[in-house]
């Protein structure tokens, strides 16, 4: 693919290391096989790295939740519970796989597989480093969200095929949620495309590589519209990956386990894997779109290879996901859809206007920078306050007679 021209010798050694390793494997093969083997190696590396990351994430999540609740978390298997994910994996593999008699057996099997496949496909286009992208297509962002929206089908497939009222109701709720939040999720990154004039993720990342005054990186999150778009994107990503506080599709206290009710053993683990993969992929997307991708935050830190910077940003976003999960209680379904349609969608639409203004006022010059900033901030803050007021109308602050304020 188009990733081969890349072995630029001016890059530092560590930067070229992954490609050199791949060369070491492939240069024994005849020339026509190089492309194919390169792609296969990319697939294997992506699967193993993110599979391992999934294992680590489950442990990290339980540890973080534990410490937030002032308890140690899993600490029995291995050193500080390091082997817990592998113990869980063995347990999941050896469990009985129960399929209800009345279930649609084909769809019941297909649902977790297609969900996992869709979430893995999204990893193909994310640029993990300066030279590391498995599939560098010029409509990468569009591809990412097109593939990502296939997960909704799988969730409904799971709910329908289980032949269980809880599963079906939960799947319908999940559909309502996922479709509601698909809209703000996609509208929130359109400003990036407006500014960058491209859908190619590698291009978007490389556009964010400069530094103002030698210190402030040109990441889109540091612009007023970019910050809003990033916040909207992250909130929608939370809902899109079924994470708390938007984890209604698998709300244990209301719907048993939602569309997962009739799943057991490794199929259940596949659903979880897909959830974590989706979360990781959306975080990776947020890093590429708003946080400057693999760019270092300071020109003095460029000696650290780009893929490590990507990993640092990705992991901190994931830690943020877990922090949020540890903090917020779950929304009700009416609050959830209200929040999407009455708050996130209008805000993201207004953000398009803000971005348009930001682009059109680009050549106002340094003299008018302050007025430009003020107008942009007004465009952001006023709708935010008005929409918040409207969203909170009719709801008083809840007071408890039994708890201190």
């Amino acid at each position, binding site marked *: 693919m188009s990733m081969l021209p890349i072995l630029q010798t001016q890059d530092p050694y560590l930067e070229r290391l992954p490609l050199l390793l791949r060369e070491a494997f492939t240069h024994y093969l005849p020339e026509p096989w190089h492309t194919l083997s390169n792609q296969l190696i990319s697939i294997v590396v992506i699967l193993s790295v993110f599979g391992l990351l999934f294992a680590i994430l489950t442990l990290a999540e339980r540890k*973080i939740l534990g*410490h*937030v*609740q*002032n*308890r*140690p978390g899993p600490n029995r298997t291995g050193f500080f519970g390091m082997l817990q994910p592998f113990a869980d994996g063995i347990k999941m593999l050896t469990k009985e796989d129960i399929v209800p008699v009345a279930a649609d057996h084909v769809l019941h099997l297909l649902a977790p597989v297609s969900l996992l496949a869709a979430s893995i496909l999204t990893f193909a286009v994310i640029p993990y480093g300066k030279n590391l992208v498995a599939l560098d297509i010029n409509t990468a962002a569009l591809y990412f969200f097109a593939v990502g929206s296939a997960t909704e089908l799988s969730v409904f497939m799971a709910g329908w095929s289980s032949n269980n009222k809880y599963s079906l109701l939960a799947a319908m709720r999940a559909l309502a949620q996922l479709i509601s939040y698909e809209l703000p999720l996609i509208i929130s990154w359109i400003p990036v495309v407006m500014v960058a004039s491209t859908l190619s993720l590698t291009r978007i990342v490389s556009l964010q590589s400069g530094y103002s005054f030698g210190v402030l990186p040109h990441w889109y999150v540091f612009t007023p519209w970019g910050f809003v778009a990033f916040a909207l994107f992250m909130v929608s990503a939370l809902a899109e990956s079924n994470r708390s506080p938007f984890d209604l599709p698998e709300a244990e206290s209301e719907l048993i386990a939602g569309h997962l009710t009739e799943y057991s053993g490794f199929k259940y683990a596949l659903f979880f894997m897909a959830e974590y993969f989706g979360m990781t992929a959306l975080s990776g997307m947020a890093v590429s779109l708003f946080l400057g991708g693999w760019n270092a935050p300071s020109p003095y830190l460029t000696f650290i290879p780009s893929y490590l910077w990507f990993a640092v940003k990705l992991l901190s976003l994931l830690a943020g996901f877990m*922090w*949020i999960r*540890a*903090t*917020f209680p779950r929304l009700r379904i009416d609050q959830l859809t209200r929040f999407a349609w009455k708050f996130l969608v209008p805000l993201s639409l207004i953000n398009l206007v803000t971005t348009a203004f930001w682009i059109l006022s680009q050549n106002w010059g340094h003299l008018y920078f302050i007025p430009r900033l003020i107008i942009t901030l007004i465009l952001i803050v006023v709708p*935010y*306050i008005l929409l*918040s*007021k409207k969203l*909170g109308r009719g709801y008083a602050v809840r007071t408890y007679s039994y708890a201190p304020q």
Partner: protein
Amino acid sequence: MYGFGLIRGLIVTGKNFVQSFYNPSRYTTQEYPEVKSTPPEAYRSFPFLVTDSETDPLGALRCVACLTCEKECPAQCIFIEKSKDKKPDANGRLQFYPTQFIIDSSVCMSCQICVEVCPFDSIKMDKVFEVAVSSRFENLLLTRDKLTKSNQYFHLISPSEAQEVDDRLAAERKVAQEKAAAQAKAKAEAAALAAQVKPVPAP
């Protein structure tokens, strides 16, 4: 409003997260197998039979096989077989005793009604909680020898209640002894009177 509450919540959980690393006194849990917690005073698991003697536990049961607990048990998990003969109890009176006393521990729901209805303070609630066994049918039927535990053990697990029971039993015993002494005295007096009366010759 405006999302400031969300940030406040995040700060609270963040504080908890950071402080739980260097301040173990924040922990609300204990590392169970290493640290064994003492259950609270009112904690109860299964009933057990109190015996007054460590050396002959089955011979000194307080239970007199009155069958009250068997009749009152809502889960009907107690089975008692009353003895044919009588043995002297701690007060020296002749009483029946249970030749069999069985509690089905899979049915018992730890309601403590047997303890409340027992007129002889002979059945009390235990505090064991490590009741897991390796075999499926082990310890499902708690027979008389498994149920019998000494009064010292009762003092160990719930001291205040055991002390109260002991004091009450001692007081009852004292009253019974005084009553017996008074009766004996009255009997002796009556006998003396009869002896006095006896020599009166028949006319």
